């Protein structure tokens, strides 16, 4: 079964450093997402991406964050100047479509644990 793959599975970084988390969405999917889950807390939406641009973002997704689809398969989340509170599991997700009338099953990857020290 097709799946969303993420790398790295775990990254430890110094505060202030830049981090890039990578994702390969399911190949025929058109919508891509990043979510995060701080340890012990809810899964939170960060950003959605469609047609090579951000379609929606949450208040968490500030200027520190950026997303990019550098080629036909990868989808990346960049965190500039990481802070301690950025420590979390970051999930990439994708869906074939998004519609108010169709099923929009969203498939998640295994996540990338980011630890900022």
């Amino acid at each position, binding site marked *: 079964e097709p799946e969303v793959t993420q790398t790295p599975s775990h990254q430890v970084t110094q505060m202030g450093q830049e981090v890039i988390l990578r994702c390969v969405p399911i190949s025929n999917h058109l919508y891509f997402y990043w*979510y995060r889950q701080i340890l012990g807390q809810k*899964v939170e939406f960060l950003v959605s991406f469609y047609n090579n641009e951000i379609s929606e973002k949450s208040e968490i997704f500030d200027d520190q964050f950026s997303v990019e689809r550098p080629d036909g398969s990868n989808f990346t989340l960049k965190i500039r100047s990481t802070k301690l509170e950025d420590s979390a599991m970051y999930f990439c997700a994708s869906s074939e479509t998004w519609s108010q009338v169709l099923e929009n099953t969203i498939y998640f990857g295994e996540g990338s644990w980011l630890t900022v020290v």
Partner: protein
Amino acid sequence: SQQGEEDPQALSIQEGENATMNCSYKTSINNLQWYRQNSGRGLVHLILIRSNEREKHSGRLRVTLDTSKKSSSLLITASRAADTASYFCARDMDTGRRALTFGSGTRLQVQP
């Protein structure tokens, strides 16, 4: 909160018993999706139920949706130790937003 909550927060049962988890929400939805998460792992999609559906089955899973009460339930029948995980409902809000809104989840422990 617009997000609603799952209950119970934690549930411990014996293998073979049924487990029921509930999810409530406050605004209209397009659909509602249930996910499972093993400790420290990714979110595995279990089942999606549309706002115009009342019940859906997938193997040992049964999901119901009551839009008048703004609630959903996930029933796992004949539970197994391998069902031990956290279960989340995620709402696709009828607001034009593409983002899923997750609850806090139910931690299910199935004792062998």
